[in-house]
């Protein structure tokens, strides 16, 4: 476990875990004392994007915001975890010589790090955080431009403002985004208006992570639903109607 500003990076050694694709996720639970926290939770395992895959270790970015993330943040070196993964559909590389424009918000920057590690094209990285301690998380990626809500680090404003400026400068890009629902909805709307392809890594409350419970759905453009766990978590923005505020996960 390493500290990274307001976040922690959990490193898990799992010899049986196949190498993940950028954008995939793992269900995690502490092997001991999973439960009995605030409101007798957590109960379900929690879904985390792979943030990095290095020397046979999977890295996950943690933000202590609920009973599940709290318990995971308490893990000490050598503690055992229950894991299931890697799961879901990851990112695909840009086509037609476009550059990759990575847009992340808060703890949602995690899958963009492993994506940066795997991309060989030109990359621009824009990250948004609430404040300076959280903005220190930007060190997970290399060469990121940062915006903060309170102006305490980087640009004072939203990361989606940076995105709009970048696309105005050069719209020959594929956007890769992960972050809170309102940020993703703005990214989706901007990219739709500019005709820019966008791949969004979504978060949703999940019971299982492998397609069994049908709990993690988001509305699909044209009707019906997509399961974030097996149809995503990375979903082409053109397939989505809008991303709603409640599309978060139990923490």
């Amino acid at each position, binding site marked *: 476990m390493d500290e990274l500003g307001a976040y922690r990076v959990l490193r898990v050694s799992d010899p049986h875990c196949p190498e993940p694709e950028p954008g995939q996720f793992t269900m995690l639970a502490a092997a001991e004392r999973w439960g009995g926290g605030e409101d007798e939770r957590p109960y379900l395992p929690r879904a985390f994007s792979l943030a990095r895959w290095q020397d046979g270790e999977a890295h996950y970015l943690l933000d202590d915001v609920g009973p599940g993330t709290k318990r995971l943040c308490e893990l000490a070196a050598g503690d055992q975890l229950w894991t299931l993964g890697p799961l879901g559909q990851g990112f695909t590389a840009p086509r037609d010589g476009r550059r990759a424009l990575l847009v992340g918000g808060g703890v949602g920057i995690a899958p963009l790090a492993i994506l940066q590690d795997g991309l060989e094209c030109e990359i621009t990285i824009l990250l948004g955080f609430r404040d300076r301690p959280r903005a220190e998380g930007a060190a997970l990626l290399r060469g990121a431009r940062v915006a903060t809500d309170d102006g305490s680090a980087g640009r004072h404003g939203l990361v989606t403002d940076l995105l709009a400026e970048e696309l105005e400068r050069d719209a020959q890009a594929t956007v890769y985004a992960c972050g809170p629902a309102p940020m993703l909805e703005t990214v989706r709307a901007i990219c739709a208006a500019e005709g820019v392809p966008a791949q969004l890594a979504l978060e949703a409350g999940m019971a299982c992570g492998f397609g069994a419970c049908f*709990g993690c759905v988001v509305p699909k453009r044209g*009707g019906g639903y997509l399961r974030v766990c097996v149809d995503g978590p990375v979903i082409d923005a053109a397939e989505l109607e809008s991303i709603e505020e409640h599309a978060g996960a*139990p923490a």
Partner: protein
Amino acid sequence: MSVEFCGLQLRHPIINGSGTFDALAARKALGAALDEEFPFAAYVSKTITLEPRQGNPPPRLWEAPGGLINSIGLPNKGLAGYLAEDLPELATLPVPLITNVMGSSAAEIAELVQACDARAEIAAIELNVSCPNVKTGLDIGADPHQLEKVVRAVRPRTSKPLIVKLTPNAADVAACALAAQEGGADAVSLINTLRALALAPASRGGLSAPRSLRPWLGGRTGGLSGSAIRAVALAQVAAVAERVRIPAIGMGGVSCAAHARELLDVGARLVAVGTESFRDPTAGARIARELDPGPASPTSGSA
């Protein structure tokens, strides 16, 4: 510990609860490992309705103390889609297949049952009677009189074993079980989820923020499952097993062999695993193994 259930010979007494394990999706996501040791001795499909259903609007899940509240809304391809697309693939599973169906009237249920009866891939049929009657609005399974009438009307449509999945949201579940038996059911299964409500959390601002009185789930109320309901399940299964002659499938919050053993001890013939399979897709196999570790293996002791 092979078990006889309504004429079916099962390898062990652990099956899945309807709607808690999508064998086709799990096979895709988890790969061949799952087929090597299929977790259940029989596979129960999710609920199939006459017409396709998209399911309820999200959010569909809420983590409750020691459990889960879901309001999924029975998404499925409808009877025709199920028979044409899913059934041939489900038939390749290495265990007998139980198809779960739901209708909002005796006529609808009869149509579903008759269509399932015609398919050799289906070993048994389970009726989900936790559905409001279109005329009365009351759950068909919550009223013993109505339940007996429906089962009696449907019974002649199939020679396959007919299982009635009872609702726990009834005044007297044992009376409902008896009604199912009198109507001609071959078995009952219980408990389904308990009706439950979760309010949307206050948004940012913590405890000082005004508390929302809005239901969190898109379907407003949902069904509570998981460890939180295990003691309720034990009481209801015990009450039902005392009252009926037909076998009972017990379920509710089972996550290890000790829990399964309790349900078997109070009279269940089989035990179903539900929410625990969300947490661990191999739970069924683990519990079956724990129940019956098999003959002791020779050890390499040294003197």
